[in-house]
């Protein structure tokens, strides 16, 4: 009710303006946006502010607890944990964005094809999705990452290869719900080619759920990547990726709690930021949109 009244005042503004207005009223969403912006800043200008180079070893301060000189302590080689976390942000962001790019591209193309053309190709694609979903995603990603061999790019491919299924299902569902609308039928009656109908009429109408899903998928991608690195099948040490940092600290947990604790907090805050922002976007685009994406 409250929103409606406000909206009437700004009824002249565009649809996008309304979305932004709704987003701005959601405090958690704005908090999420701030967190995400801070993390992005850390990836770009963070290295200029980091107190030490991430790989610099200092054997005089091995496993030093947090102090004024080393805010988050040092690890077993005397490297500054805080600096390593700042440098690690770029890997986490790269993985999150990279995975989502792969997932969104593959999922959109296959989902569009399955939903728009239907028939046999839809049946085959959806059975493939069923099969992939009956293997736990993490197990499958582990298998692919193991088969390809570790490393950043292979990890992105492995997680992307597993994650597209949900995206394809979502896009397919959206396409099915709009492909029989009058404007699509009209375009077809006017003799529009399939490719033109898909680009001009279908895609613009599924862009909102896609943006929401993409934002809500980044946290999953980050968590999966951290898990793969932790298990030794993702980014390898000494790269300061956060999951790998936690794995490095695991052996020292009995006498140096800070090595594993802080990178974990960094992951949690980042994921929280994306979750808040994604929830806010979902509510802003369409308050009625399903809560369980």
């Amino acid at each position, binding site marked *: 009710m409250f929103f409606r009244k406000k909206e009437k005042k700004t009824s002249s503004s565009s649809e996008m303006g309304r979305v932004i207005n709704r987003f701005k009223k959601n405090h958690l969403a704005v908090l999420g946006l701030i967190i995400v912006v801070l993390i992005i800043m850390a990836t770009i200008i963070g290295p200029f502010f980091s107190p030490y180079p991430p790989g610099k070893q200092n054997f005089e301060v091995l496993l030093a607890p947090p102090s004024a000189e080393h805010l988050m302590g040092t690890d077993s080689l005397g490297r500054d944990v805080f600096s390593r976390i700042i440098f690690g942000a770029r890997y986490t962001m790269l993985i999150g964005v990279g995975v989502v790019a792969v997932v969104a591209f593959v999922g959109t193309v296959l989902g569009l094809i399955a939903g728009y053309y239907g028939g046999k190709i839809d049946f085959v694609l959806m*059975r*493939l999705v*069923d*099969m*992939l*979903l*009956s*293997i*736990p*995603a*993490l*197990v*499958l990603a*582990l*298998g*692919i*990452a*193991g*088969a*390809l*061999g570790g490393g950043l790019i292979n990890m992105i491919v492995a997680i992307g290869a597993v994650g597209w299924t949900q995206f394809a299902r979502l896009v397919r569902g959206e396409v099915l719900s709009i492909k029989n609308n009058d404007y699509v039928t009209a375009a077809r009656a006017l003799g529009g080619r399939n490719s033109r109908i898909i680009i001009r009429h279908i895609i613009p109408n599924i862009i909102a759920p896609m943006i929401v899903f993409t934002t809500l998928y980044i*946290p999953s991608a980050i*968590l999966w990547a*951290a*898990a793969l690195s*932790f*298990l*030794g*099948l993702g980014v390898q040490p000494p790269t300061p990726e956060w*999951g790998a940092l*936690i794995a490095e600290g*695991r052996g020292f*947990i*009995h006498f140096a*709690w800070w090595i*594993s*604790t802080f990178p*974990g907090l960094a*992951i*949690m*805050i980042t*994921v*929280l930021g994306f*979750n*808040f922002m994604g929830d806010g976007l979902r509510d802003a685009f369409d308050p009625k949109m399903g*809560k*369980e994406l």
Partner: protein
Amino acid sequence: MLQYIIKRFLMVIPIIIGVTIIVFALMHVTGDPIALMFGPGVSSEMVAQRRAELGLDRPLIQQYFSWLGNAVTGDLGRSIRTGDSVASMIQDRIGATLELTVIALLITLLVSVPAGIVSAVKKYTIFDHLSRIFAMLWVSMPMFWLGLILILFFGVFWQVLPVSGRHGPLWTGAGFLSFIMPSLTLGLPPAALFMRLIRSSMIDVFNEDYIRTARSKGLGENIIVYKHALRNAILPVVTLLGMRIPWLFGGSVITETVFSWPGMGRLLVDSILKRDYPIVQGIVLIIAILVIFFNLVVDLLYGYIDPRIRYD
């Protein structure tokens, strides 16, 4: 009912065959396990000889069908490193994994159902807000990190629980203590999702006509909440349960690694790292079968909870 179960099983067969093809392709298309096993500096004759022994020089299709034929009879091949039977290796470990996943699932439900109900009944109170904030924090946490934090507090700072391993069956004192942290690590993160779903689905049900009818005829609030509302609100939860089962087995891989739990998951990670592909194929196949089986159980559970659902 029996007909439905049989039909479901028949439908599952193509999926399982598809899964075996995916698993087999994964392990064979990329990389040569034998070369990795011997490392550099080994003569190519030796590698070729070992490949011939293992039948790796045959065409892939032939290899696949002989593997599948053996798998049907319960023979999953032998480890290429130790020569042990994969089936018996899995047999030794599957119990530990199942114990862990089932207890974790119970923890998920024991935490989320009461919390979700209370949140819905007392919506917009402090309890509701706090539990939603906690839920948000839980889902944002890497699971292995939660395990490490539990180890840090209960194992290192307070030293009340063992930090790794399974110290006997659940019903013994030491065994019970060793179960606590792994099952919390696996059970708590999904509890957040379940809690949120139960809350929203209870709130939806509270707006239904039959709840108003129940209230207007003077039924006690407890009967309304537990007998009328909960039973209807629990259906989406069962759906989510089915969707989360693959996740549970994926999570057990991580949990078992963090706590050195003697289950299939840890064996899987070790085998992937060492490219011991017969073990990987065997475990992934078993996990896929377990997922499909549990999903069938969830499907049957629907009919038990909601008598309106008929199987035909």
